């Protein structure tokens, strides 16, 4: 495994623990809720599910970009990367829209435990999505500038960013299940 990929893998291990703690906080207060809005009565699950599909698709497009790079070098790679960014960006926009709606209905950060833990957990995920999109954008830009020609050496950058992006998606699988689906348990 290349150093870059191993480095990102290690970073992911640490991030797993970070999210684990936020998940525990969410789960704890889901089990012992106070008064106020809950997941079940505040969240629009079908709509978020739709946006989630966009995010998961971006993992597929990212994978396609990697395959393109391995096989043909440069052509098509940039397209797949830009598609990934668009899909991921759409997800983020959907999340921002969701936040605005929740706030307009009085579900704010400090409203109650649900509010705090929901916004913290999904918010940090959103920050990770944003960071990932930035990294992918940088790779796409380098590809367009023709700076990623030495496949042997530069594939490391691809692998690292790719791994990170898949991780971000995997975290969303967990969060979506825990927050949106489990709300009805």
């Amino acid at each position: 495994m290349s150093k870059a990929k191993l480095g990102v893998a290690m970073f992911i291990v640490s991030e797993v623990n970070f999210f684990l703690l936020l998940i525990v906080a969410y789960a704890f207060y889901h089990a012992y809720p106070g008064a106020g809005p809950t997941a079940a009565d505040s969240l629009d699950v079908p709509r978020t599910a739709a946006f989630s599909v966009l995010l998961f698709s971006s993992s597929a497009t990212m994978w396609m970009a990697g395959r393109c790079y391995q096989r043909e070098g440069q052509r098509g790679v940039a397209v797949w990367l830009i598609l990934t960014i668009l899909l991921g960006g759409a997800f983020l926009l959907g999340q921002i829209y969701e936040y605005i709606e929740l706030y307009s209905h009085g579900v704010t950060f400090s409203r109650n435990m649900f509010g705090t833990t929901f916004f913290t957990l999904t918010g940090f995920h959103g920050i990770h999505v944003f960071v990932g999109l930035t990294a992918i954008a940088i790779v796409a830009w380098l590809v367009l500038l023709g700076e990623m020609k030495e496949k042997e050496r530069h594939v490391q950058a691809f692998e690292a960013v790719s791994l990170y992006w898949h991780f971000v998606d995997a975290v969303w699988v967990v969060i979506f299940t825990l927050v949106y689906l489990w709300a009805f348990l």
Partner: protein
Amino acid sequence: MSQAVAPEAVAALPVAESHEGLLAWVTTVDHKKLGILYFISSFSFFVIGGIEALVMRVQLAAPGLHIVSPDMFNQLFTMHGTTMIFLVVVPMLLGFMTYLVPLMIGARDMAFPRLNAMSFWTQALGGILLYFSFAAGGAPNAGWFAYAPLSEHAYTSLLGVDYWAIGLAAIGIGTLAAGLNFIVTVITLRAPGMRMSQVPLFVWMSFINSWLILLAMPIINASIVLLVADRFLYSNIFNPSGGGSAMLWQHFFWGFGHPEVYIMILPAFGIISEIVPVFSRKPIYGYEFVAGSTLAIAFLSFTVWAHHMFAVGMGHYWDAVFAACTMLIAVPTGIKIFNWIATMWGGQLRLKTAMLFAIAFLVTFTIGGLTGVAFGVVPIDWQLTDTYFVVAHFHFTVFGGAAFAMFGGFYYWFPKMSGRMLSERIGRWQFWLTVIGFYLTFFVQHFLGMMGMPRRVFTYPDLPGWATLNLISTFGAFMLAAGVLLLVWNIYVSRLNGERAGDDPWDGWTLEWLTTSPPPEENFDRVPPIRGRRPLWDLKHPDRTDAVLDKAGL
């Protein structure tokens, strides 16, 4: 005969511009310079943390004194604890790791040299941010573990706790990056032939330690995020009056806090594992068991956290579960002590200062470990937790353990880093002053705890014996400070006038002694093929390599 091999090149970087003087140090990505920077910053914080301790000990020298106000005292003990843990012990150990790990595995540098630099600077600047709080309305004063709801807005509204939180977050990110860096370095940059089962024990302990860092730091980062959210955004995660749980903070904090104490000791175990064999002239006894027990400790360290919470009221069932895990973790720690003793048995002991500190470590850390076992017995904890018995326990393990090991490490590796030997004469004075000062300061505190003195008190009632023991402790603290100053003096006089060290002043067996003192920027021209755990022994005794000796069934 021996085919030397050029070490693997670090990932291609443009050739660094060569800078002179201060700029060279500020812009360096060289692991050796960064290691020394870690030593300089952590030692500076050590002196500051030490002064905080001395002021507290003066306040406690007699009952009813008014040297400092209660609030200032609370800032002092909060800053002393936070400083010593996050800005002294961990970074000083990182200094040893940063300097030595690449050398010991025959590499040119760490896997990510620029990340390495980021780790150092984030830690140092995070420390400065933390200390800025003194000028910004007051340092944090809720204790180094900032229990909620005392640390929440309602009870601590000044910015001190916020500086604590954000300063620690910055420091934590740097440390996390360092852990990541060491893992990738040890996995990918070992000299050809060096299997994981053959790395020097210091490298192994650093490697395992890096996993602890990787897994524990995110826990405190997440906890701090939630606390800052409570304080700035008025949520109530840890605020019982708003429906939150004070106990949740404790679970979260100690989920980090317990692995953290192993982060503070594993590299020290590594230092001892290097010094004891070389100064006993025998290979380490039971390498596999010393290495394996480290792995056991690392796993178990994530299962014992709530032994800090036996008085909180979790119920006997959970108390007992955590007690069992705590007792379990004592076993692999004991195994190490026995192995080190067995290494010394039958040896030819060279009682240089480095070895003296290693021996002091063995006795002192054993005492600290044994009082730790006492705490694992729940009813005993019910009496002694939150008293001076705890203060004694953790100073025995952290100071008598990690600090003694690091003092030994300085005497052992200063020659490699500077090309000069530290004075053995001053070293012996430093040793005795430090050890006697230490025991005077902290041994009596076991009794104060048993007699009923709680911790974190700015003064105490004039009960029989309390004043005397506190006075002895204060006296010892000043003696200890004198000992530490002697080390500074030793470094100062030896740096330019000490006896020249040469490549291998101790007749060592690990790769750092193969190169010059100090090493050149690229560390090695060539490294020999690695066929055992003591590459230099094999090189110096080609007819009696470890493989040969081991096969002879010894």
